Protein backbone atom coordinates (compact mmCIF):
# COMPACT_ATOMS: atom_id res chain seq x y z
CA UNK A 1 0.00 0.00 0.00
CA UNK A 2 2.75 2.42 1.01
CA UNK A 3 4.91 1.63 -1.98
CA UNK A 4 2.15 1.70 -4.55
CA UNK A 5 0.90 5.05 -3.26
CA UNK A 6 4.40 6.50 -3.44
CA UNK A 7 4.93 5.19 -6.93
CA UNK A 8 1.69 6.70 -8.15
CA UNK A 9 2.57 10.05 -6.56
CA UNK A 10 5.94 10.01 -8.26
CA UNK A 11 4.37 9.55 -11.69
CA UNK A 12 1.69 12.21 -11.34
CA UNK A 13 3.48 15.01 -9.55
CA UNK A 14 6.15 15.97 -12.15
CA UNK A 15 3.51 16.21 -14.89
CA UNK A 16 1.42 18.55 -12.76
CA UNK A 17 4.44 20.65 -11.91
CA UNK A 18 5.39 21.05 -15.57
CA UNK A 19 1.94 22.18 -16.74
CA UNK A 20 2.40 25.96 -16.02
CA UNK A 21 5.83 25.91 -17.69
CA UNK A 22 4.42 24.19 -20.77
CA UNK A 23 1.60 26.76 -21.03
CA UNK A 24 4.10 29.63 -20.76
CA UNK A 25 6.31 28.10 -23.46
CA UNK A 26 3.36 27.66 -25.86
CA UNK A 27 2.21 31.25 -25.28
CA UNK A 28 5.64 32.70 -26.03
CA UNK A 29 5.99 30.51 -29.13
CA UNK A 30 2.57 31.56 -30.46
CA UNK A 31 3.35 35.31 -30.19
CA UNK A 32 6.80 35.23 -31.77
CA UNK A 33 6.00 34.44 -35.39
CA UNK A 34 8.94 32.88 -37.30
CA UNK A 35 11.54 34.41 -35.07
CA UNK A 36 13.16 31.81 -32.92
CA UNK A 37 11.91 32.19 -29.43
CA UNK A 38 14.40 33.23 -26.77
CA UNK A 39 15.00 30.77 -24.05
CA UNK A 40 12.05 30.72 -21.72
CA UNK A 41 12.68 32.41 -18.40
CA UNK A 42 12.05 30.43 -15.33
CA UNK A 43 8.49 30.85 -14.12
CA UNK A 44 8.04 33.08 -11.11
CA UNK A 45 6.11 30.40 -9.39
CA UNK A 46 8.55 28.00 -7.71
CA UNK A 47 8.64 24.60 -9.33
CA UNK A 48 7.63 21.85 -6.98
CA UNK A 49 10.44 19.40 -6.38
CA UNK A 50 9.67 15.94 -7.70
CA UNK A 51 8.76 13.40 -5.07
CA UNK A 52 11.22 10.55 -4.84
CA UNK A 53 10.63 7.09 -3.48
CA UNK A 54 13.69 7.21 -1.22
CA UNK A 55 12.54 6.60 2.33
CA UNK A 56 13.41 9.07 5.03
CA UNK A 57 16.51 7.95 6.88
CA UNK A 58 15.98 6.67 10.39
CA UNK A 59 16.54 9.25 13.13
CA UNK A 60 20.14 9.65 14.25
CA UNK A 61 20.55 8.28 17.74
CA UNK A 62 22.39 10.30 20.35
CA UNK A 63 25.49 8.85 21.98
CA UNK A 64 23.73 8.79 25.34
CA UNK A 65 20.88 6.73 23.87
CA UNK A 66 23.25 4.32 22.16
CA UNK A 67 25.15 3.73 25.39
CA UNK A 68 22.01 3.38 27.49
CA UNK A 69 20.12 1.07 25.16
CA UNK A 70 22.88 -1.17 23.78
CA UNK A 71 22.51 -4.91 24.28
CA UNK A 72 25.84 -6.49 25.19
CA UNK A 73 25.03 -10.07 24.24
CA UNK A 74 26.60 -9.46 20.81
CA UNK A 75 29.73 -7.76 22.15
CA UNK A 76 32.33 -10.53 22.28
CA UNK A 77 33.81 -11.86 19.04
CA UNK A 78 33.52 -15.59 18.45
CA UNK A 79 36.62 -17.83 18.60
CA UNK A 80 36.27 -18.57 14.88
CA UNK A 81 36.16 -14.84 14.18
CA UNK A 82 39.31 -14.38 16.28
CA UNK A 83 41.02 -17.01 14.14
CA UNK A 84 40.00 -15.26 10.92
CA UNK A 85 41.11 -11.85 12.22
CA UNK A 86 44.42 -13.32 13.29
CA UNK A 87 45.06 -14.62 9.79
CA UNK A 88 44.25 -11.14 8.44
CA UNK A 89 46.74 -9.69 10.92
CA UNK A 90 49.43 -11.79 9.24
CA UNK A 91 49.72 -14.66 11.70
CA UNK A 92 49.26 -17.90 9.87
CA UNK A 93 49.07 -21.43 11.17
CA UNK A 94 45.69 -21.12 12.83
CA UNK A 95 44.62 -21.75 16.38
CA UNK A 96 43.38 -25.31 16.02
CA UNK A 97 46.86 -26.80 16.47
CA UNK A 98 47.20 -24.98 19.80
CA UNK A 99 43.98 -26.42 21.28
CA UNK A 100 44.73 -28.83 24.10
CA UNK A 101 42.83 -31.89 25.23
CA UNK A 102 41.05 -31.07 28.47
CA UNK A 103 39.49 -33.31 31.05
CA UNK A 104 36.68 -31.08 32.24
CA UNK A 105 33.81 -31.95 34.56
CA UNK A 106 30.58 -30.49 33.29
CA UNK A 107 28.23 -32.01 35.84
CA UNK A 108 29.42 -30.28 39.00
CA UNK A 109 27.14 -28.30 41.28
CA UNK A 110 28.64 -24.84 40.72
CA UNK A 111 26.72 -23.58 37.68
CA UNK A 112 29.04 -20.61 37.10
CA UNK A 113 31.98 -22.96 36.71
CA UNK A 114 29.95 -25.24 34.42
CA UNK A 115 29.05 -22.24 32.23
CA UNK A 116 32.69 -21.12 31.88
CA UNK A 117 33.85 -24.68 31.17
CA UNK A 118 31.10 -25.19 28.60
CA UNK A 119 32.21 -22.01 26.83
CA UNK A 120 35.81 -23.26 26.72
CA UNK A 121 34.81 -26.63 25.21
CA UNK A 122 32.51 -24.91 22.74
CA UNK A 123 35.41 -22.72 21.62
CA UNK A 124 37.57 -25.83 21.17
CA UNK A 125 34.81 -27.41 19.07
CA UNK A 126 34.55 -24.32 16.86
CA UNK A 127 38.29 -24.01 16.37
CA UNK A 128 38.96 -27.67 15.61
CA UNK A 129 35.80 -28.61 13.73
CA UNK A 130 37.59 -29.02 10.41
CA UNK A 131 40.69 -30.87 11.64
CA UNK A 132 39.69 -32.85 14.72
CA UNK A 133 39.25 -36.60 14.56
CA UNK A 134 35.72 -37.87 14.67
CA UNK A 135 36.30 -39.24 18.17
CA UNK A 136 37.61 -35.95 19.58
CA UNK A 137 34.83 -33.96 17.99
CA UNK A 138 32.15 -36.29 19.32
CA UNK A 139 33.75 -36.25 22.78
CA UNK A 140 33.78 -32.44 22.85
CA UNK A 141 30.17 -32.25 21.73
CA UNK A 142 29.24 -34.72 24.47
CA UNK A 143 30.84 -32.38 27.01
CA UNK A 144 28.91 -29.41 25.62
CA UNK A 145 25.70 -31.42 25.90
CA UNK A 146 26.45 -32.32 29.52
CA UNK A 147 27.14 -28.68 30.28
CA UNK A 148 23.90 -27.61 28.65
CA UNK A 149 21.93 -30.19 30.61
CA UNK A 150 23.55 -29.10 33.89
CA UNK A 151 22.68 -25.47 33.15
CA UNK A 152 19.09 -26.38 32.29
CA UNK A 153 19.09 -25.47 28.61
CA UNK A 154 15.88 -27.37 27.90
CA UNK A 155 15.48 -30.26 25.47
CA UNK A 156 15.99 -28.75 22.02
CA UNK A 157 19.72 -28.00 22.14
CA UNK A 158 20.77 -31.37 23.64
CA UNK A 159 18.60 -33.05 20.97
CA UNK A 160 20.35 -31.00 18.29
CA UNK A 161 23.73 -32.09 19.65
CA UNK A 162 22.57 -35.72 19.59
CA UNK A 163 21.52 -35.30 15.98
CA UNK A 164 24.85 -33.73 15.01
CA UNK A 165 26.74 -36.47 16.83
CA UNK A 166 24.81 -39.18 14.98
CA UNK A 167 25.51 -37.49 11.66
CA UNK A 168 29.22 -37.15 12.47
CA UNK A 169 29.37 -40.83 13.46
CA UNK A 170 27.76 -42.04 10.25
CA UNK A 171 29.58 -39.50 8.06
CA UNK A 172 26.37 -37.90 6.82
CA UNK A 173 27.43 -34.33 7.51
CA UNK A 174 30.38 -32.56 5.92
CA UNK A 175 32.79 -30.61 8.08
CA UNK A 176 31.81 -27.45 6.19
CA UNK A 177 28.18 -27.93 7.16
CA UNK A 178 29.24 -28.72 10.70
CA UNK A 179 31.03 -25.36 10.85
CA UNK A 180 27.72 -23.65 10.00
CA UNK A 181 25.81 -25.67 12.59
CA UNK A 182 28.30 -24.93 15.37
CA UNK A 183 28.61 -21.24 14.47
CA UNK A 184 24.84 -21.01 14.66
CA UNK A 185 24.73 -22.88 17.96
CA UNK A 186 27.36 -20.57 19.47
CA UNK A 187 26.18 -17.25 18.07
CA UNK A 188 22.45 -17.61 17.61
CA UNK A 189 20.90 -20.45 19.61
CA UNK A 190 22.72 -20.35 22.95
CA UNK A 191 22.34 -16.57 23.48
CA UNK A 192 18.57 -16.94 23.08
CA UNK A 193 18.15 -19.77 25.60
CA UNK A 194 16.55 -19.02 28.95
CA UNK A 195 18.75 -21.20 31.15
CA UNK A 196 17.30 -22.61 34.35
CA UNK A 197 20.64 -21.70 35.93
CA UNK A 198 19.80 -18.02 35.37
CA UNK A 199 20.72 -14.99 33.28
CA UNK A 200 24.38 -15.33 34.17
CA UNK A 201 24.76 -18.50 32.13
CA UNK A 202 24.98 -16.89 28.67
CA UNK A 203 27.64 -14.27 29.53
CA UNK A 204 29.66 -16.84 31.46
CA UNK A 205 29.54 -19.30 28.55
CA UNK A 206 30.67 -16.44 26.32
CA UNK A 207 33.39 -15.58 28.83
CA UNK A 208 34.70 -19.14 28.66
CA UNK A 209 34.81 -19.10 24.85
CA UNK A 210 36.43 -15.67 24.73
CA UNK A 211 38.98 -16.62 27.39
CA UNK A 212 40.01 -19.75 25.48
CA UNK A 213 40.19 -17.83 22.18
CA UNK A 214 42.20 -15.01 23.73
CA UNK A 215 44.60 -17.47 25.36
CA UNK A 216 45.27 -19.18 22.03
CA UNK A 217 45.59 -15.88 20.16
CA UNK A 218 48.09 -14.62 22.76
CA UNK A 219 50.11 -17.82 22.37
CA UNK A 220 50.15 -17.43 18.58
CA UNK A 221 51.20 -13.77 18.77
CA UNK A 222 54.04 -14.55 21.17
CA UNK A 223 55.19 -17.41 18.95
CA UNK A 224 55.10 -15.16 15.87
CA UNK A 225 56.70 -12.26 17.79
CA UNK A 226 54.15 -9.77 16.43
CA UNK A 227 53.17 -7.39 19.23
CA UNK A 228 51.27 -5.11 16.83
CA UNK A 229 48.76 -7.90 16.40
CA UNK A 230 48.25 -7.85 20.17
CA UNK A 231 46.78 -4.36 20.06
CA UNK A 232 44.57 -5.34 17.15
CA UNK A 233 43.41 -8.66 18.57
CA UNK A 234 43.48 -8.50 22.35
CA UNK A 235 42.79 -4.93 23.40
CA UNK A 236 39.06 -5.17 24.19
CA UNK A 237 38.28 -3.18 27.35
CA UNK A 238 34.49 -3.22 26.85
CA UNK A 239 34.41 -7.00 26.45
CA UNK A 240 36.40 -7.47 29.64
CA UNK A 241 34.15 -5.00 31.47
CA UNK A 242 31.05 -6.85 30.29
CA UNK A 243 32.29 -10.18 31.64
CA UNK A 244 33.54 -8.62 34.87
CA UNK A 245 30.08 -7.23 35.56
CA UNK A 246 28.67 -10.75 35.63
CA UNK A 247 31.56 -12.34 37.49
CA UNK A 248 31.27 -9.71 40.21
CA UNK A 249 27.49 -9.86 40.42
CA UNK A 250 26.10 -10.46 43.86
CA UNK A 251 24.84 -13.98 44.19
CA UNK A 252 27.69 -15.45 42.20
CA UNK A 253 28.73 -18.73 43.73
CA UNK A 254 32.25 -17.51 44.42
CA UNK A 255 32.59 -18.93 47.90
CA UNK A 256 32.82 -22.48 46.67
CA UNK A 257 34.88 -21.78 43.59
CA UNK A 258 38.47 -20.76 43.22
CA UNK A 259 37.85 -20.72 39.47
CA UNK A 260 35.48 -17.75 39.58
CA UNK A 261 37.72 -15.88 42.03
CA UNK A 262 40.69 -16.44 39.73
CA UNK A 263 38.56 -15.43 36.73
CA UNK A 264 37.72 -12.13 38.39
CA UNK A 265 41.40 -11.48 39.17
CA UNK A 266 42.38 -12.32 35.60
CA UNK A 267 39.71 -10.09 34.09
CA UNK A 268 40.77 -7.20 36.31
CA UNK A 269 44.34 -7.60 35.14
CA UNK A 270 43.22 -7.81 31.51
CA UNK A 271 41.19 -4.64 31.98
CA UNK A 272 44.31 -2.90 33.25
CA UNK A 273 46.27 -4.04 30.20
CA UNK A 274 43.45 -3.13 27.79
CA UNK A 275 43.48 0.45 29.12
CA UNK A 276 46.83 0.98 27.37
CA UNK A 277 46.68 2.55 23.90
CA UNK A 278 49.00 -0.12 22.49
CA UNK A 279 50.14 -3.50 23.78
CA UNK A 280 53.75 -4.63 23.96
CA UNK A 281 54.94 -8.21 23.61
CA UNK A 282 55.26 -8.33 27.40
CA UNK A 283 51.60 -7.35 27.69
CA UNK A 284 50.64 -10.18 25.36
CA UNK A 285 52.75 -12.57 27.41
CA UNK A 286 50.95 -11.36 30.53
CA UNK A 287 47.57 -11.97 28.88
CA UNK A 288 48.72 -15.50 28.04
CA UNK A 289 49.86 -16.09 31.63
CA UNK A 290 46.68 -14.63 33.13
CA UNK A 291 44.33 -16.64 30.93
CA UNK A 292 46.46 -19.75 31.51
CA UNK A 293 45.94 -19.34 35.23
CA UNK A 294 42.17 -19.61 34.82
CA UNK A 295 42.20 -22.35 32.23
CA UNK A 296 44.51 -24.59 34.25
CA UNK A 297 42.16 -24.30 37.23
CA UNK A 298 39.28 -25.61 35.15
Amino acid at each position, binding site marked *: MFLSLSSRTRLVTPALALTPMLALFLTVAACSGDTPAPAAKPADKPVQAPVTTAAAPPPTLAMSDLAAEAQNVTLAPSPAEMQKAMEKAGISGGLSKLVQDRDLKLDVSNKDVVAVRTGVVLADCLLTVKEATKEKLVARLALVKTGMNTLGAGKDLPATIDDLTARINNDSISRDDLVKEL*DEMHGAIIPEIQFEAGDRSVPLIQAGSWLEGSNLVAAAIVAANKPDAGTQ*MLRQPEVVGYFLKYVKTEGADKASSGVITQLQGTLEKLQEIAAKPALTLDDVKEIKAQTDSVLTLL
Partner: protein
Amino acid sequence: MHILLLSLLATPARADEDQAETCLRTKIWDGYNTGYAVRTSQKATLNQGGHKVYLVTLYAGTDYKVLACGDTNVGNADLVLYDHSGKQVAQDSSNDREPVLQYTPQTTDTYYIAVHASTLNDLGKQGSVSTAVTYK
Protein backbone atom coordinates in the same frame (compact mmCIF):
# COMPACT_ATOMS: atom_id res chain seq x y z
CA MET B 1 -4.40 -31.13 13.17
CA HIS B 2 -7.24 -28.84 14.27
CA ILE B 3 -5.51 -28.21 17.57
CA LEU B 4 -2.29 -27.37 15.75
CA LEU B 5 -4.13 -24.98 13.45
CA LEU B 6 -5.90 -23.31 16.36
CA SER B 7 -2.65 -22.91 18.23
CA LEU B 8 -1.06 -21.35 15.15
CA LEU B 9 -3.97 -18.92 14.79
CA ALA B 10 -3.75 -18.04 18.45
CA THR B 11 -0.07 -17.09 18.22
CA PRO B 12 0.41 -14.86 15.17
CA ALA B 13 3.32 -12.96 16.75
CA ARG B 14 5.29 -16.16 17.13
CA ALA B 15 4.63 -17.09 13.51
CA ASP B 16 5.93 -13.68 12.36
CA GLU B 17 9.03 -14.08 14.47
CA ASP B 18 9.68 -17.43 12.84
CA GLN B 19 9.22 -15.84 9.43
CA ALA B 20 11.92 -13.25 10.11
CA GLU B 21 14.25 -15.88 11.52
CA THR B 22 13.77 -18.26 8.61
CA CYS B 23 14.51 -15.46 6.13
CA LEU B 24 17.66 -14.50 8.04
CA ARG B 25 18.82 -18.09 8.42
CA THR B 26 18.60 -18.57 4.65
CA LYS B 27 20.70 -15.46 4.10
CA ILE B 28 23.25 -16.54 6.71
CA TRP B 29 23.67 -19.98 5.17
CA ASP B 30 23.90 -18.49 1.68
CA GLY B 31 26.65 -16.25 3.02
CA TYR B 32 28.87 -19.24 3.69
CA ASN B 33 29.04 -19.77 -0.11
CA THR B 34 30.78 -16.41 -0.41
CA GLY B 35 33.02 -16.86 2.62
CA TYR B 36 30.93 -15.13 5.28
CA ALA B 37 30.45 -16.89 8.63
CA VAL B 38 27.93 -15.91 11.28
CA ARG B 39 29.09 -14.32 14.51
CA THR B 40 25.79 -13.54 16.25
CA SER B 41 22.10 -13.45 15.48
CA GLN B 42 19.42 -11.68 17.51
CA LYS B 43 15.72 -10.96 17.18
CA ALA B 44 13.66 -7.95 18.23
CA THR B 45 9.97 -7.10 18.26
CA LEU B 46 9.41 -3.43 17.44
CA ASN B 47 6.68 -0.84 17.03
CA GLN B 48 6.57 1.56 14.07
CA GLY B 49 9.67 3.77 14.34
CA GLY B 50 11.08 1.61 17.11
CA HIS B 51 14.69 0.50 17.24
CA LYS B 52 17.09 -1.82 19.03
CA VAL B 53 20.80 -1.22 19.60
CA TYR B 54 23.55 -3.85 19.79
CA LEU B 55 27.12 -3.26 20.92
CA VAL B 56 29.68 -5.23 18.91
CA THR B 57 33.45 -5.54 18.81
CA LEU B 58 34.71 -5.41 15.23
CA TYR B 59 38.24 -6.35 14.18
CA ALA B 60 40.37 -4.11 11.97
CA GLY B 61 40.67 -5.47 8.43
CA THR B 62 37.82 -7.97 8.76
CA ASP B 63 34.96 -7.57 6.29
CA TYR B 64 31.63 -7.41 8.13
CA LYS B 65 28.20 -7.75 6.64
CA VAL B 66 25.22 -7.00 8.89
CA LEU B 67 22.01 -8.61 7.66
CA ALA B 68 18.44 -8.16 8.84
CA CYS B 69 15.07 -9.61 7.92
CA GLY B 70 11.73 -8.21 8.97
CA ASP B 71 8.50 -10.17 8.94
CA THR B 72 5.80 -9.30 6.39
CA ASN B 73 4.41 -6.57 8.61
CA VAL B 74 7.68 -4.67 8.26
CA GLY B 75 7.60 -2.39 5.22
CA ASN B 76 11.03 -0.90 5.68
CA ALA B 77 13.75 -1.88 8.14
CA ASP B 78 16.98 0.09 8.42
CA LEU B 79 20.46 -0.64 9.74
CA VAL B 80 22.83 2.06 10.96
CA LEU B 81 26.38 1.56 12.25
CA TYR B 82 27.86 4.04 14.74
CA ASP B 83 31.45 4.09 15.94
CA HIS B 84 32.53 4.13 19.58
CA SER B 85 32.04 7.90 19.83
CA GLY B 86 28.53 7.81 18.37
CA LYS B 87 29.49 8.99 14.88
CA GLN B 88 27.51 7.34 12.10
CA VAL B 89 29.88 5.37 9.84
CA ALA B 90 27.59 3.27 7.64
CA GLN B 91 23.95 2.82 6.78
CA ASP B 92 21.96 0.52 4.50
CA SER B 93 20.54 2.11 1.36
CA SER B 94 17.53 -0.09 0.70
CA ASN B 95 13.86 0.69 1.20
CA ASP B 96 12.64 -2.77 2.11
CA ARG B 97 12.46 -5.24 4.97
CA GLU B 98 15.78 -6.98 4.25
CA PRO B 99 18.51 -4.36 4.74
CA VAL B 100 22.21 -5.14 4.41
CA LEU B 101 25.15 -3.08 5.63
CA GLN B 102 28.84 -3.73 4.89
CA TYR B 103 31.80 -2.29 6.73
CA THR B 104 35.52 -2.99 7.11
CA PRO B 105 36.93 -1.19 10.19
CA GLN B 106 40.35 0.42 10.09
CA THR B 107 40.85 -0.15 13.80
CA THR B 108 39.62 -2.79 16.21
CA ASP B 109 36.98 -1.16 18.39
CA THR B 110 33.44 -1.36 19.66
CA TYR B 111 30.60 -0.17 17.42
CA TYR B 112 26.86 0.24 17.83
CA ILE B 113 24.46 -1.40 15.39
CA ALA B 114 20.99 0.16 15.40
CA VAL B 115 18.16 -1.71 13.71
CA HIS B 116 15.03 0.35 13.00
CA ALA B 117 11.50 -0.71 12.11
CA SER B 118 11.08 2.45 10.04
CA THR B 119 7.78 1.46 8.45
CA LEU B 120 5.19 -1.09 9.47
CA ASN B 121 2.37 -2.09 7.12
CA ASP B 122 -0.16 -2.60 9.90
CA LEU B 123 0.37 -0.08 12.68
CA GLY B 124 -1.88 -2.09 14.95
CA LYS B 125 0.69 -4.86 15.10
CA GLN B 126 4.36 -5.00 15.98
CA GLY B 127 7.04 -6.13 13.58
CA SER B 128 9.69 -8.74 14.19
CA VAL B 129 13.22 -8.08 12.91
CA SER B 130 16.08 -10.59 13.12
CA THR B 131 19.60 -9.23 12.77
CA ALA B 132 22.89 -11.06 12.20
CA VAL B 133 26.53 -10.00 12.17
CA THR B 134 28.55 -11.99 9.65
CA TYR B 135 32.23 -11.69 8.77
CA LYS B 136 34.90 -12.93 6.38
